[in-house]
């Protein structure tokens, strides 16, 4: 992708910088399959992504399920090994680290998962859940762990005295998600991937969690990648957003600008899918599945494209759209 939104993407001292990241999965590549002469199928979950996130920034990533958002997030925290490209963390290349370097990186980069019901071990009390990362990283002094756990719970606004000895099944989804966030910040990381942290929560609770993420990012200087399928929630905590489709970014930009004037047909579609609380608003539903080539009615790129390669267009300052014809 030449002509990339390069200028906009480089910043003075980014926390996370990703270049040309690719993650492919090989399916059906077992011993038996290869003996039967079946060729393995390759799923291109992430297929060339550039991204920079700075200190105290919440960067939004939207796309439908299967677009590769979670894979990207998991690759960034090194739960998956990237196939190609590079990830650097505070200037250090972490793409292929292992062993103790990886363990250090695990302290710096954390992840919050979508499912607050599955992400806490039902056998462990809140205290044990939140202290787990400390134990893993060899904080052996019990009192020290206690202080840090209480501090983390304070940060997520969960009264520690009340909840330390409770078990996950006694907690509502919102509280569970707060506990999961406490676990993620207890090691004082600098980068957090929040993978759909509110999509399984009630609307009445979502706002509280979003706001918590925003505040933590500000207070702790955290770089946050906020992943969501719902472009409406992104708007409330992210200044910048990228839209992902089939493993690639198709649109980048300032959140309000992208929402006000979406450029790529896929972004338009994503926005058209958001229901409105206002019964009077008549939104038009787009019925068919989006066509990546953009022959979808959504307009925008009806002219022919003279470029050979996929490329970016700066449609207005700080707003980039990938050519939908590629």
């Amino acid at each position, binding site marked *: 992708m030449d002509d990339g939104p390069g200028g906009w993407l480089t910043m003075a001292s980014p926390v996370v910088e990703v270049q040309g990241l690719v993650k492919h999965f090989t399916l059906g590549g077992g011993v038996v399959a290869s003996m039967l002469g079946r060729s393995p199928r390759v799923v291109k979950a992430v297929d060339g992504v550039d991204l920079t996130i700075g200190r105290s920034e919440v960067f939004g990533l939207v796309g439908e399920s299967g677009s590769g958002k979670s894979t990207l997030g998991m690759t960034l925290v090194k739960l998956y090994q990237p196939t190609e490209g590079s990830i650097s963390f505070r200037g250090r290349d972490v793409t292929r680290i292992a062993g103790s370097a990886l363990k250090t990186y695990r302290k710096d980069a954390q992840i919050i998962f979508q499912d607050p019901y599955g992400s806490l071990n039902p056998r462990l009390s809140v205290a044990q859940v939140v202290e787990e990362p400390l134990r893993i990283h060899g904080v052996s002094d019990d009192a020290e762990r206690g202080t840090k756990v209480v501090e983390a719970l304070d940060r997520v606004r969960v009264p520690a005295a009340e909840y330390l000895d409770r078990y996950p099944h006694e907690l509502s989804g919102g509280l569970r998600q707060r506990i999961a966030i406490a676990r993620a910040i207890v090691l004082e990381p600098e980068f957090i991937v929040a993978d759909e942290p509110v999509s399984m929560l009630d*609307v*009445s609770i*979502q706002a509280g969690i979003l706001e918590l993420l925003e505040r933590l990012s500000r207070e702790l200087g955290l770089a946050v990648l906020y992943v969501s*399928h719902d472009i*409406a929630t992104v708007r409330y905590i992210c200044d910048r957003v990228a839209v992902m489709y089939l493993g690639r970014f198709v649109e980048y930009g300032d959140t309000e600008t992208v929402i006000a004037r979406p450029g790529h047909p896929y972004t338009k579609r994503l926005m058209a*899918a958001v*229901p409105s609380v206002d019964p009077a608003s008549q939104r038009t539903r787009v019925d068919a599945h989006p066509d990546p080539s953009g022959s979808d009615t959504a307009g925008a790129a009806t002219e022919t494209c003279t470029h050979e390669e996929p490329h970016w267009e700066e449609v207005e300052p700080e707003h980039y759209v990938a050519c939908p014809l590629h």
Partner: protein
Amino acid sequence: MPAQPTATASAAPISDRPPVSLRVSGLRVGYRVEQGHLRAVDGVDLEVNPGESLGLVGESGCGKSTVGKAILRLLPEDARVEGRVLLDGDDVLRMSARQLRQIRWTKLALVTQSAMNALDPVYRIGDQIAESIVAHEDLDRRQAWRRAEELFTLVGIPQERLRDYPHQFSGGMRQRAVIAMALSLNAGLLLADEPTTALDSIMQDQVLAQIQRLQRELSRSMILVTHDIAVVAETCEKVAVMYAGRITESGPTAAVLATPYHPYTMGLRNAFPTIDGDRRELISIPGNLPNLLDPPTGCRFASRCPFSTDHCREVDPPLIEVGPGHLSACHYPDQAAAFRDRAAQRSTWTTDPGGG
């Protein structure tokens, strides 16, 4: 009068069965739990006229699924149920097992949150749908299969995918297949419990579009249970908002959501993220549902309501009519306009409403 067996009429095309009416009155459901008696539903009245769609909204644990299960008589054996659930005039709660079996497939159909569990992973989807048709209606396999094809077309999945296994479907397709299955028997009332909650927004949009189209085209009655008021805003004519086992506000969707009279409804509206218009503040409703083992006296929302008074904590507000068909259970309907303005400001909700 007991429900008449309708199996003989089933060879008719899908749209032939008449929509049904539902009237729930004084419904109370108690679960027996270790610590005592949990009043999950505590006096609920609902009305769905033939062909009408009603959205039942509220946050997790408010009892909305319990209402749905009571209507279908799917509650656990030891649950205590009171009240009436009149389906075309017959009380579901007092039906025999045989009557129940008849109405369950012909008058009532259920689409649940967990589409994964509704489909058996080891059989082809088409076989599963055809199987349920053959089991309940007087059709042979070929006719049943043809009906299944018709249904797949209705929910927008190519017919040849009937030969697929559930794992070969995406989440949204699976959800639509479950809808097809629920519709396979022409039930007059469709009860959908969080049919789209597990789906992403594009899938949700497609599934809702299908449900809505089917409901309108086949003029089915429908109850949609969800925590998402925007889904209701777009899909249902009427809405009932539930809180802690009771209905707090109900009426025509447009009226309830445009001019809510109950502070809880106002809170739900403000908590909802939107892409329309200017970015406004998102305001969550602090606090939790009250303990249903020992519900508080007075207004159940009082512990979280920014406008609560001593009067609220003592006297239970009744549902009163605030507009045509629009009911609200708040003591101060005349101050609703002022409440709406104040509820739109975050500071209103963050001052401790006292006694939390």
